[in-house]
């Protein structure tokens, strides 16, 4: 693989996609602390690995999504322009419809959930009017201003190609430090320090954010010719949007691409956006091919999954 830039990267925190807001990743670091065990009889330091640690620091521009109210359903084929300068999810129910277009492009033919970009135009074609519900897609300030005492999950995706590197952390958000400079630019710096587990690098097994509009079995992901290993694995999930009752994201595995896949890691039934981590013990067999599977009752689930396969025995995070 050729050297690459960091253009087109993604960054998710606590179930929010901040890729359009975060201007720079200032630090992704982690690893074991060193414990000095140097005896008197040697001529150089002897050290062993201690507790794992991890930190992510980033800078973000200010963006805030306010609450939205449902506009009236326009007449058939009459465009309606969103007055919200942030994206909204439009959940269309019922009616007798033949077309849904957003910004002039056909995106569907009937009821369902559609992402309407900031200030976008949506046009419905129908003979019987449907109903709809608009929901704000949360942005940077919605994600970070809460400063929770509980753990946050953050994921950095190097691009959005399947199999690209991804860094993940489960930790505490320490700050949300704002700067409004004398020219008017508004930005904030944020640090997340790990809790419970160190920083983990893995690979993305969804191409950035995957959007399912019904229960779906994803395409097989080949981990690159690795045969089955028995050293376990960890995985991180960010559910970024969920319209519906619940979604259960799981990772299945198999020794062949077209074989019978069995469950490896299951994130359980989730009813709201958020960040999640799951692992299997470090003696669990992990096969070469993976699929990300969704089940549950939903019309729109946007999520991203990163996977860390332990390459050697005895790894504990």
């Amino acid at each position, binding site marked *: 693989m050729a050297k690459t830039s960091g253009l087109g990267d993604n960054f998710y925190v606590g179930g929010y996609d901040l890729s*359009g807001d975060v201007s720079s990743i200032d630090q992704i670091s982690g690893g074991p602390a060193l414990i000095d065990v140097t005896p008197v009889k040697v001529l150089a330091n002897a050290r062993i690995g201690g507790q794992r640690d991890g930190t992510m620091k980033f800078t973000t521009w200010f963006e805030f999504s306010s609450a939205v109210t449902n506009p009236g359903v326009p007449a058939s084929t009459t465009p309606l322009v969103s007055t919200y300068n942030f994206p909204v999810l439009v959940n269309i129910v019922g009616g007798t419809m033949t077309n849904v277009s957003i910004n002039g492009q056909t995106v569907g033919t009937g009821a369902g959930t559609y992402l309407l970009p900031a200030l976008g135009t949506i046009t419905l074609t129908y003979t019987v009017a449907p109903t709809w519900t608009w929901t704000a897609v949360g942005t940077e300030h919605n994600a970070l201003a809460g400063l929770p005492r509980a753990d946050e999950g953050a994921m950095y995706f190097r691009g959005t190609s399947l199999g690209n590197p991804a860094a993940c952390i489960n930790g505490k958000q320490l700050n949300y430090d704002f700067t409004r400079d004398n020219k008017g630019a508004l930005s904030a710096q944020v640090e997340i320090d790990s809790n419970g587990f160190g920083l983990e690098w893995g690979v993305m097994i969804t191409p950035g954010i995957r959007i399912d509009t019904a229960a779906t079995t994803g395409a097989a992901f080949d981990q690159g010719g690795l045969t089955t290993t028995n050293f376990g694995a960890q995985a991180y999930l960010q559910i970024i949007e969920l319209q519906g009752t619940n979604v259960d994201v799981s990772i299945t595995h198999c020794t062949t691409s077209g074989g019978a896949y069995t469950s490896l890691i299951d994130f359980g039934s989730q009813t709201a956006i958020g960040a999640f981590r799951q692992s299997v013990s470090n003696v669990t067999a992990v096969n070469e091919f993976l699929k990300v599977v969704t089940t549950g009752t939903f019309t729109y689930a946007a999520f991203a999954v990163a996977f860390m396969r332990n390459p050697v025995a005895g790894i504990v995070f």
Partner: protein
Amino acid sequence: MTNALDEVAINDVINRIESLAMSSGFFDTVNGHEPKSAPGTDVTFAVWVQSVMPLDASGLAATSCLFTLNGRIYKSMTSQPYDRIDPVMTAATSFFMASLNASFQLGGADNVRAIDLLGMYGTPLSAQAGYVEIDRQMLRVMTIVIPISINDVWTQSP
């Protein structure tokens, strides 16, 4: 591929700038292009696109842009009384800049983040006096740089 700065968006931004100019009440004529012939003795305003460039105040996966318009106020250099030319031109400039300050998001249109009033991304909203010759007539002008930052114009993907 996404391009939020399409013809519709560009027209909309220019139209909003023209509306602000017209509502100031200072200008007898407002154009969305540079005049091809010399304006009369009245005060004329024209606006056109000067530059489009990426903004380093972008996110990780989208490129925002700095969309810079030039506005120019024209008044004949031979209009009488001469002593009033600069005061009128400067007052018109100031009123126009006041209206841009009072609507620095252009009403929230077209993903506009802000008119760069103070120069957070380089050149601020500013005006430069000068002279232009059109149709062999010398005109007193004020050229106003209107830098507008626009969010997430182009989505990045390999």
